[in-house]
């Protein structure tokens, strides 16, 4: 049994090493100007990047901006990447910095405080409002309730500071460890824990009525 366990661990670590080596080679190629290699790197990570951005900024058009700005920064600075951290860590450092810049810019511009207009009715809805609830069409009351829940969650998320929001999403959306998040944000694990704790506390207070 122990032999099986060791064998499984061996296979897993070999697979991880092979994946790292493959990624390393791709980065090298991209650094050498191979556009296809760069696009493959993008494809490996871009769904997660967009998902993170979407949940941080709540608005698809803002998420698109963060997506594009992040990957362009990666493209422009790839030559400076020295493999001192994993590509994954380096990429997410850029993405989180871009998202933080974006949130701070948005916070400082009053006109951006309002949610983006959506839909034919000219109403204002943001990302959470647009998320469908399971089988909403079958039950208008449930659909209405789902929208109200979405609005309350959206309002609760807006109470978080940019850093709290980024930490919360990286932990609960991407499932990253707090230590890794700290490395990406260039801060200590302790600070990240505090941000997560404050974010959770604010959300708990804001959404108490829903539970």
């Amino acid at each position, binding site marked *: *049994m*122990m032999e*099986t*366990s060791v064998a*499984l661990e061996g296979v*897993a670590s070999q697979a991880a090493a092979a994946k790292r080596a493959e990624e390393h080679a791709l980065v090298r190629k991209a650094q050498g100007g191979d*556009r296809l290699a*760069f*696009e*493959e790197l*993008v*494809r*490996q990570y*871009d*769904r*997660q990047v*967009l*998902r993170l951005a*979407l*949940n941080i900024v709540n608005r*698809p058009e803002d*998420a*698109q901006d963060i*997506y*594009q700005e992040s*990957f*362009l920064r990666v*493209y*422009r600075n790839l030559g400076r990447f020295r493999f001192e951290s994993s590509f994954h860590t380096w990429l997410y450092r850029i993405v989180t910095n871009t998202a933080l810049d974006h949130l701070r810019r948005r916070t400082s511009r009053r006109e951006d405080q309002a949610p983006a207009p959506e839909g034919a009715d000219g109403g204002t809805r943001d990302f*959470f409002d647009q*998320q469908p609830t399971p089988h909403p069409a079958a039950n208008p009351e449930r659909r209405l309730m789902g929208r109200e*829940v*979405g609005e309350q*969650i959206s309002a609760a998320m807006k109470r978080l500071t940019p850093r709290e929001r980024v930490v919360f999403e990286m*932990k*609960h*959306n991407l*499932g990253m*460890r*707090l230590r890794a998040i700290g490395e990406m944000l260039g801060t200590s*694990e*302790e600070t990240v*824990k*505090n941000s*997560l*704790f*404050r974010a*959770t*506390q604010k*959300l*708990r*207070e804001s*959404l108490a009525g*829903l*539970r």
Partner: protein
Amino acid sequence: MQRDENEKLMPATAGTPEKTPPSQNEDGAPGNSKTCAEWAPQIVLLAAGEELDAVALERVAGHVAECAACSAALDREKELLALLAERRKNPDAPLLAECRANLEDALDREEERGWLGWIGRAVFGSNRQANWSSNWLEAGTSWSAALLLAVGFSAGVLGPRLLRHPVAPVSPTTQKAAAETTGNLNGDTDANGGANSDESASREASAASTHSVVSALDLPTADLAGINVMRPDGGDLPQVRLQLQAREPVTLEGNVNDDNVEQVLLYMLNDNARFCSGARLDAVDLLRARNSDPKVRTALCHTVHTDHDAAVRLKALEALDGAGGEGEGEGMVLQTVLDALQSDQNPGVRIEAVDTLRDMAAKGQVASDDRALAVLRDRMAKDPDTYIRAQSAAAIQELGPHQKF
């Protein structure tokens, strides 16, 4: 006494203490006088998962087991996270496709700027780069000639790039051949492909391209745009339709016995971070029918070990029921069940693991080896869940008549 890092978390700003009677507000554990408010940060980390080390985990779990207020606080944390997770969505395929297209355009512009910059530097020198466009007429005849050459050269290099069309990784011909031969593939580009009456040619193509469609798709870069499972009445295998978003969209239809379908489903489990939980749950459910296939068994074990969604891990554990087979396969399944019982942070998954272990023991599929007994003893003594402790003790009794412990 070792003081773990987690204990240093926010002693002064631990947050709102739970409104509990004073008698409940003190931790009754010997040598530990933390208030519930002081436990709050650790409860947040416990609910977040995979953040507490073994010592801290044991302490906070021990406290939660004894303190009604903190136990309720933990439940509230989990409810909150579940509520937020329910509302959290993946970007849809059109949004991702739009992002990719825009990025490609932006990269094209970057490359063009790079070439123009290079030409500017080559012609006028780097010190004049900033204002070369306004001063280029000042250059002499020879420089003008050089500029014209450079412009011609760059047009030759950039022209084809600007005019190029994306080349599909899967040719319509390949899709068509496979669709016609296997009867289960509908490439969107092949909607009006027409019937091929030459059956022998089709069979030859089928033999040559059993895996060609999916492997030509380059799964690591393709996206899943949709998965629909249709369950026929009776005992037939469910039919699945997988819509894949590559440079050309492709739709696969069939059941899990179809190699292309199986390959995509396995890929979804093996590279689970790229797919949403609902799709992974469907993949596990569909693959369950072939759980004695070594590839499927390995993917299910991988899912139990690595999937970040407890519901998917739990379903994968269920799907391993009867997957053991003989020898190495049996060892792998047992190892996976034991790993889940010992290490999974989710009590639901651990409950499924201990139940599975007891089932396996009842069927004589578990030898009473040291590793199994060690895990069960550990859970019997330490698991915060009463049911798991009781089931572990029962499993030890079932497995252990021949062992001294």
